[in-house]
């Protein structure tokens, strides 16, 4: 189905704060999940008669389980600090895409049903009964949030709209309004092992094909092993790396790094997916179930290390949540986590990001690179939101900004950062994260990419940048699709290990 026509924002010299245009994005509705998917996920597929009770009950349940939600519902003072921080607001000018207004879609209902003031004086405090109109607003606007956390950097109380969006989507799931894209992906990962529904034999074929390509290209027999018991490293990477362009170039890069460093490694059919869409829905158990595949694979294969490929939200889940969800990490004192942790090699961080691994290998001289092989490129780096604001690399705060840049600078000679207020902790989301990377949300995706496209445009004009490196499968897929609408060539988009792959010396 073709998406509706819409205007592509014009790129200006600066990212301007637009005047409000109420309701201009109310029509954006992601496709709803059908009955088979909702059934599989254990959710209803349509609003039942008791939808309102179900919604309020679920909200109460989440308020009791997540301190973040409870505190964030109460603490906002409507100061306005976040109002100009969301890329979707900047790109669409719809006021309900301002973080505080997005939160208020839920807060108005919270106040009505869960607070004294809202029960006694609803009009005064902006409290509202839950209606189908409000539910429809939730469905529109909780799927115009990529859960990128940029607003949480600027909020004086650290209110993270992502937490509220996640809760909102979970309540919608529970009343029968699931999203087709995310819930189909979740059911695929549960049934088959990856988000793309790529079965084991197909994966094996793909990897063999890649091995032939690399050998034809370099003359070196670089392997991409699958399900090898006793390998040192289990690499868990987004399934897009197996066949999407430019993702696959980074997969080739990882393989070359392991080969050059002489590290035995393996991929896993069972855990052939780093991505975890459970994160986006605010359902702990669903996220845990997806993450458990990695634990199972690690125990099954007996690996000593777990390394994660280029994927933003996957790295958030891996770095921040895997230890909690599955025991992949250190410091566990319960039988569940000890079972795995005693198997892992304590001399390495667990899990480890592929950039941490490669950067260490280059710095310690264990692999050799020739940056002049990338001299045709002038490179900039897009900090992916989940890596930037929800994870770390290395031992120091901010390592998630330093390590990828160190790595890039060791394999290319020409590097220029984009404007400070658009990178690091202030980075702009690609516009396609958090479950929005679907064609039915193309307008939201294109408009939401405007801030990043503006910052990129400036370094293109000033420094002739012709390559934007990144470490996220969603960012890569989003930018290759969306940047051409702003007049950029899609070949400008690629992974950090795509650069490593070109510069690395194999012998």
């Amino acid at each position, binding site marked *: 189905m073709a998406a509706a026509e819409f205007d592509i924002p014009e790129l200006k010299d600066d990212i301007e704060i637009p005047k409000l245009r109420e309701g201009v994005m109310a029509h954006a509705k992601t496709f709803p999940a059908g009955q088979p998917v909702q059934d599989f996920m254990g959710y209803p597929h349509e609003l039942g008669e008791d939808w309102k009770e179900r919604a309020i009950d679920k909200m109460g349940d989440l308020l009791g389980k997540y301190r973040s939600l409870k505190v964030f519902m109460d603490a906002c003072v409507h*100061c306005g600090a976040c109002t100009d921080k969301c890329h979707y607001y900047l790109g669409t000018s719809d006021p309900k895409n*301002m973080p505080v207004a997005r939160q208020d879609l839920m807060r108005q209902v919270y106040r009505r049903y869960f607070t004294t003031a809202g029960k006694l004086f609803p009009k005064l405090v902006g409290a509202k009964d839950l209606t189908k109109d409000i539910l429809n607003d939730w469905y529109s606007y909780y799927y115009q949030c990529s859960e990128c956390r940029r607003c*949480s950097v600027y909020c004086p109380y650290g209110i993270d709209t992502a937490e509220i969006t996640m809760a909102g989507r979970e309540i919608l799931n529970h009343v029968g309004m699931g999203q087709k894209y995310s819930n189909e992906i979740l059911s695929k990962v549960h049934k088959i092992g990856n988000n793309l529904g790529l079965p084991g034999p197909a994966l094996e074929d793909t990897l063999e094909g890649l091995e032939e390509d690399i050998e034809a290209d370099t003359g070196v027999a670089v392997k991409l092993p699958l399900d090898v018991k006793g390998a040192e490293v289990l690499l868990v990477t987004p399934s897009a790396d197996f066949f999407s362009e430019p993702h696959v170039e980074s997969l080739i890069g990882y393989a070359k790094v392991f080969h050059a460093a002489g590290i035995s490694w393996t991929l896993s059919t069972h855990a052939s997916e780093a991505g975890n869409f459970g994160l986006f829905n605010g359902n702990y158990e669903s996220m845990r179930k997806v993450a458990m595949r990695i634990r199972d694979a690690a125990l099954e294969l007996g690996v000593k290390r777990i390394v994660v490929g280029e994927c933003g939200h996957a790295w958030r889940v891996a770095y921040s949540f895997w*230890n909690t969800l599955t025991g992949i990490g250190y*410091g566990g004192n319960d039988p569940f986590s000890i079972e795995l942790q005693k198997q892992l090699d304590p001399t390495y961080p667990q899990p480890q990001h592929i950039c941490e691994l490669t950067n260490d290998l280059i710095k310690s001289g264990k692999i050799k690179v020739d940056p002049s092989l990338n001299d045709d490129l002038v490179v900039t780096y897009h900090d992916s939101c989940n890596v930037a*604001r929800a994870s*770390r690399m290395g031992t120091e705060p901010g390592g998630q900004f330093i390590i990828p840049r160190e790595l890039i600078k060791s394999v290319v000679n020409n590097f220029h950062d984009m404007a400070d207020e658009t990178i690091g*902790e202030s980075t702009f989301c690609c516009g396609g994260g958090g479950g929005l990377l679907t064609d039915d949300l193309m307008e939201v995706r294109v408009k939401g990419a405007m801030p990043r496209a503006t910052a990129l445009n400036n370094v293109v004009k000033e420094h002739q940048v012709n390559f934007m490196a990144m470490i996220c499968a969603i960012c890569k897929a989003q930018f290759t699709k969306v940047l051409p609408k702003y007049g950029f060539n899609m070949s400008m988009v690629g992974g950090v290990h795509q650069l490593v792959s070109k510069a690395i010396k194999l012998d």
Partner: protein
Amino acid sequence: MGLSTVTMIYAGMFYLATFLLVVGLGYKIFDYSRTPAPLKIPTTPAPTTRQGVTYRMAKEVVLFESLFKANKWIWVFGWMFHFGLLLVLLRHLRYFTEPVWFWVGIVQPFGKYASIMMVIGMAGLLARRFLVDRVRYISTPSDYLMLVLLIAIGLSGMLMTFVVHTDIVALKAFFLGLMYLDVQPLPQDLTLLVHLALVALLMVIFPISKLLHAPGLFFSPTRNQVDNPREHRHVAAWAARLDQKN
């Protein structure tokens, strides 16, 4: 000596307001602290040690660091208001202590003029609610009224400090009397009665309003968590039960 009706009403009002403030806020703090934070969600880059988190929190509480990054106008007005309010509150301690603590005496002259800073800050915040379209859009009636209430408290207080003084000795006797359960007569100027009634109202609505941002900040997981998820296993009680099924 018989006490006037007004004195009795105000005495009762302050006992009730204090009770509601303490119980209401106490309940909220208890409720926040018993609700688990099942996942590590600090907004990164985040400190990797507890001391680091204390430093981060101190910068948020004292300097409004995140707000400073966000918007210099809100920061200037917000910080003037809160810092002014702090000095004003500290100055008011002299009405509740006998003898007056020595450092309250030092704060006293600053506290008097801090009220001006406080009211200017609030006027700036109120102006933004009318003038900035984004802030106007998100403002509810209570957002305006809260500022109006605080400004009215500030102005009525300033009126007594700088223009029509009340019988401050008698006022102090009234509050010390409340504290020692020996109610004394309250001076009955209109300005004072308005000032005190508004303060009592503020105390009552504190635990059921957005003023909960004050305790809320300390419980905000994005600010108060240590960034060490790889090194330490963080599991909430309700989530730990899932591990046992495996």
